[in-house]
């Protein structure tokens, strides 16, 4: 389980907190908790949904303690490792996508984060959020359309100004 899900948990937490330092602490906490529960509780039927639920609650608790926004270093990291041309293009798109995601209501953004950064299936997201699989599927599809419109608007705005 550790090997299978570490990267997804890490990316999910990193996107949510925007801080590498906090992410290291929180991910450690997530797997400590998972270890403890795993050794005392029954093996979960959906292990990924189970460990992501732990990750989600750990991040929620973290936010309750101190609210934070995505920090600049994370935004910068989105634009790494491209050629100069690609970098400019991708940086703009990623920037717009980031803004579009930030524009979504919390739960919608959560659905997209779990789907695309934690690589979760619709059924698994449903288990984490307490929704039906079909509901999640419908929502992801709707959100993709919505995000597409938002990113398009953002890119046009940038082009108009720049």
């Amino acid at each position, binding site marked *: 389980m550790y*090997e299978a899900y570490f990267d997804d948990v890490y990316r999910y937490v*990193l996107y949510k907190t925007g801080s590498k330092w906090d992410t290291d602490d929180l991910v450690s906490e997530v*797997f400590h908790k998972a270890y403890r529960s795993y050794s005392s509780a029954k093996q979960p039927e959906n292990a990924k949904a189970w460990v992501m639920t732990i990750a989600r*609650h750990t991040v929620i608790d973290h936010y309750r303690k101190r609210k934070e926004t995505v920090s600049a270093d994370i935004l910068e990291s989105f634009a790494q490792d491209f050629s100069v041309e690609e970098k400019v293009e991708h940086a703009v798109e990623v920037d717009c996508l980031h803004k579009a995601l930030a524009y979504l209501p919390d739960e919608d953004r959560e659905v997209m984060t779990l789907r*695309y950064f934690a690589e979760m299936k619709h059924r698994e997201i449903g288990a984490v959020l307490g929704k039906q699989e079909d509901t999640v599927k*419908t*929502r992801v599809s709707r959100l993709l359309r919505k995000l597409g419109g938002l990113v*398009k608007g953002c890119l046009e705005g940038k082009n108009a100004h720049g």
Partner: protein
Amino acid sequence: MDEQKLEKTLAAMKERLTVNTALKDELRTVFRRKRRRALAAKWSLAAAAAAFLSVFVLNGLPGVGLPGVNAAALRVQNQVSFVEIGSGSALNVAEHDGKVYVPVAGEGLFVYGGAGFHRLADRELSDLSISRDGRQLLWAAGGTVGTYDIQSGVWRELLKGDGREVFYEQPAWSEEGRFLYVRKLLDPGNREERVAESAIYEWRGEAEPPRKLAEGRSPAPVPGRSAFLYEKAGEQGIHIIFRETDSGEEREIDRGRSPSVSPDGRYVAYVKNDRPGPPAGGQAEAGRVENVWVADTEGETRRPVTSNPLRPEEDGPLDPPASQDERPAQTPAEEGRSAPEQGGLYRYASPTWSSDSHSVFALRSLSDEGAKVSLIRLDLSTRTLTPVETVRAFEQAVIQRDLDFARSLLMEQPDFFIGSNPHRVSYTILGSGTANGRPYVDVEEYWSYTANPYYGIQKVRYELEATDWGYVLNGGELLDDVLVTGTEDGRLTLERNGQEEVLLDPGELPRELLPPGPSRISSLAYVPSRNLLLLTLQVLQDETGGKQQAAVKLIRYDTKERTFELLEERAKLGEAANVGAEAILVSPDGRFAALDLFSDDEPAERSHILVYDLEEKRADLPETELTAVGLEAVRTHYWNGTNLHFTVKSHGQTMHLVWDAVRRTLSTP
């Protein structure tokens, strides 16, 4: 942007969320090494935390107020962090008869009490002192000193600074109609606003001219005597001085700052740097290891009453406390003198005695810039805690995640991890005794998992060791281990010491309790002695075209008779629909259940508590008794007997309160 390209960009974004592979390798090694049972987990603390251990001893404080007791004999009975205020913004503390007044930068003056807290005035103040009858506040703001009548709300300015060169500050009542204060003169020619003079004066009414008493700052009058304590700068740093007002006779109490004298006149609380020789320049603050200390006003004995572990970056041991030099931040360290770069984890400020002389309030913050400030209370007594009281203090510290205090109650501080889920929600002291010549205390500890059907009960025997500073926990044994968990399809399973039993099969919930649309068991609590299993059934919002809105049902399940009873159903919170339950906490005796509720139709962080009395079949919302306005969140914390500890968030602050479920009244912890 089309969906295909969007998904590609999302994938690119994901790839740029770089995984820390070093951490992954490191944790993998840790987990491979770990082979331990649940109890060991409780005795283990995150490796990082192990770095900041300091043996703070529950030595307590005293029964302040008992004749013939010196400060060194005082024991700390309890340490409570009961308000968390915004970052770096709490400026001072005053208390009278359980009401605590704190000026908060940019927010105004707040008052905290058993009914919660509220903003008393919008005015931004820096210093506070409350009169003995609790009616008048002396304040300072922007170089002006005045009074505020709490009942009438009338403000008066008594000493008005010019805001440029002359500043009046740090007023402190000495007796009715009189107070001490500091007059500060700045050198206007100096860009850095160097203080040209700082002197303590006595205000004796508008008819009499002020009387200059001493050069210094932070005056703290000694009640019932014509004397006061104050900070005096010396070659070796800042000293706390006791001074007879009339004769001018002085004696040094200790090095330190911010003295506060107990209303009975016996003790002085102050902040002291336990680490000698702070480094020069910008490193000075970082190198400090401050604690709140208490000394006799006669200066005979003294002792620290807080702990301050080193910040986690540092592994070195604490320097010897107590009699070491303290140097003010402004004083350059001696050349060549080495000093550590990292200091204590916390900063302490504004120690202030309660009006009954039994407690000291103080502001505590993490040393990191921008960290939130907590208002803490230290209850002092001359009595040493019994084994049961020691275990109770440990349980509460763990539940409240006050790791420093919890560690101070352990003989050793092993790997000790407290996570957010599953987490302890209550405990019961079952009994105590002596085995093999050592005292022990048996405890039942209850565990829950936020928004998940999970409830654990562990019976633990803690062994204690008598030390010079009181009892400490020195080992434990898991006597019984019960865990109830639920699956997605609604099966509830009881596991006891490795044996499994199905408590509830899928489909066993009566049809009349189920909604037409989707639902799931979202949380539970179990009281074996009553065959009681309390469930929250989360009615889910049907987003596929149905009309079902989210709601919560509280259901009682008799595990022996296998019967069900609907106790409470909440489809709305006020006007807000789509209600969800995040947690259920049951009192150890099984009489009360506390539910954390929220509505999707309210702002994301808004939450409420509902307390249900299973005997009276009555639901209470403790928040209706609060004076706080603009509530942002009300959340359960834990049960202590039939007292529900919970938190209230408002104005960006979080306060810890207690709901007595039997009397249905509020109080501070």
